[in-house]
């Protein structure tokens, strides 16, 4: 099962290494990882997506909490939340596919952020599923290059994950 975990950490050098070392040493797999500063520059927020059963998730959560620099660990799965990631894709263009590609971009409400003679760079953002779906749809047109971020997530409504 897929789990999205939010980890608030001290914004210090080496913290990312501590987290990745932990995952490697305990044999947990990271699907994706996104890190960035929060509104408080002393605290960073990490969103980690992992796969595993409940037992593995429990160990991951506890092991993360055990790290001295980890302030708070939160698992999103049981709570209503929003998840977003971004993907940049360079799609090859020619006379025959140009219209279809443009249609697809329109349907997915994605954006063209760069155009050249033979290709476009498209930015698509949304849930992991939406991005996967878009990527799948444009594969036949020829993906020349692509890169994507891990997802980031927040609770819906009013609940807030706070670092004390």
């Amino acid at each position, binding site marked *: 099962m897929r789990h999205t975990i939010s980890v608030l950490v001290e914004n210090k050098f080496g913290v990312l290494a501590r987290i990745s070392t932990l995952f490697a040493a305990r044999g947990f797999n990271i699907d994706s990882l996104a890190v960035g500063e929060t509104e408080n520059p002393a605290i960073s927020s990490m969103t980690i997506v992992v796969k595993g059963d409940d037992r593995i998730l429990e160990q991951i959560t*506890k092991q993360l909490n055990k790290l001295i620099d980890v302030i708070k660990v939160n698992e999103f799965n049981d709570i209503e939340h929003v998840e977003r990631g971004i993907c940049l894709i360079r799609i090859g263009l020619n006379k025959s596919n140009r219209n279809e590609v443009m249609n697809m971009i329109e349907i997915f409400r994605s954006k063209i952020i760069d155009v050249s003679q033979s290709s476009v760079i498209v930015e698509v953002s949304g849930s992991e599923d939406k991005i996967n779906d878009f990527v799948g749809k444009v594969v036949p047109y020829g993906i020349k290059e692509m890169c994507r971020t891990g997802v980031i997530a927040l609770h819906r409504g009013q609940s807030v994950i706070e670092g004390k």
Partner: protein
Amino acid sequence: MVKRTGAQILVESLLKENVEVVFGLPGGQALPMFDAIHGSELNFILVRHEQAASHMADGYARSTGKPGIFIVTSGPGATNIVTGLCNAYMDSVPLVGISGQVATSVIGQDAFQEADITGITRPVTKHNFLVKDVNDLAKTLKEAFYIATTGRPGPVLVDIPVDVQRASCEFVYPDKVDIRSYKPNYNGHPIQIKKAAEVINKSERPVFHIGAGIVASNAENEIFEISKKCNIPVTNTLLAIGAYPLDTNLSLGMLGMYGTFCANKVVQAADVVISVGARFNDRCTGEVCEFAKNAKKIHIDIDPTSISKVVDADIPVVGDAKMVLKEMAVFMDNKDRKDWLKAIDAWRTEHPLCYNKNDGKLHPQYVVEKISELTRGEAIVVTEVGQHQMWSAQYYKAKNSRLFLSSGGLGTMGFGYPAGIGAKFGNPDKEVIVVAGDGSFQMNMQEMAVAVLNDIDVKVVILNNQYLGNVRQWQEMFYGKRYSHTCLAKRKKCPKWCNSPKRDTCPVYVPDFLKWAQSYGALGIRVTEKNDVEPALKEMLRTKNSVVLDVWTEIEENVFPMVPVGASLDNIITRMNG
């Protein structure tokens, strides 16, 4: 306010923490620190190998309950302490290690004697720090001590670049620590505690399984009282030897691979296993899915990650062993549990620990039994790792906790002798005896210089079987007696396939441990006959100096009982071929 250099801040901080002794070895990137140590009140002990410094600090910590401290230089000095840190991390021993580092301006440039030691030791420390600014040093040291000694204790490394050692700032040692992301929890949840007590009250066949957490939280009295009140038998892990008195009908002895027949039977037959401060290591559980199959598991531990890591806990209680046991005792009913204790007595007498006492041969178990007898279990016995370690665990009847020190989780050969020296520094009035194998002892025996030069009379009893005996035992039992590279006497001219060693026909053993001891000004004694063991031990105990007692035991003696790897605790082998 007067300014201090980073090196002076280090020394003064250690004195503020009431550090009695520091082990270590200097080097280029530690020069300012050693200059500050020179002439300070700090009691610094120069070792011969940095690994030994970390084990000495460890032995000091295990035997006193106070954090052990060592200081080494950058690069190779720092990489040499990785084993010691890992060893302490596995066994939850509080250490504060200090390493020198190349100057901040050249970090990352592969400078001379540069090693990314915070990177290297991240998985084997509770926490580590690289101090890049002298203004952060005092606070960091305070935090290092706090983290090492609170919650589940563990080693902390502070890496200090040489320019930070030289730089100066005002020195204020903080009184308090406040780390927002580290707040150890000591109080068990009251509802969980009550639930646990109710399950135990209803149980017919409960058993306590106690580990190092009992010792770390000084809960020896609490476990004794609660077990007496409710007539619940107690088995211990290797690291909790001595935490529960052996002379009661509730005492089962050690559990697991080389544990007693009785302890293993009891756990497998129990309806409730209450584990306190133990983490279900595979040497204790045997095949996990077969472990105490019909028992509810109550797991009390200060570290939430220990719970349901290996064995699923039905009732987890996160908290300090002493506090939780105290609170739990209130809810527990007095019960006599006569049938259960009767069954246990039967198991105890069915297969007590035994070896051949009547063949006149010099069995290693006999030596440990005699040590136990002559010291009345009041000496600190420190072991290396191997067969002698298990015989010591089985036959040394430690009167209290902190009297049997051994490398449990990591199983570090070379730990025992330096740890024994460290223990003696912490307990100058106690007898310290290192029981070693001839293999393990050779891994750190250079530290005899430290013992002799500092008038530290640590006694070493080598149970010499001229083999890496534990591995040889497994080769005998599970690899068709193919003794691959376990014979320590083997020479080039020996037949490749030799598996029939005999003292009188084998090549002369090197080193000659007697001459070795003598070269350091220590006393060396050799014993080859059973009858000479007791007089030699007495002479050793009378001598107020380092002694090496080289005991030539039976070569192919095996440790029993034994549960093979991957087998259930039910499949305990009590003796060879049977």
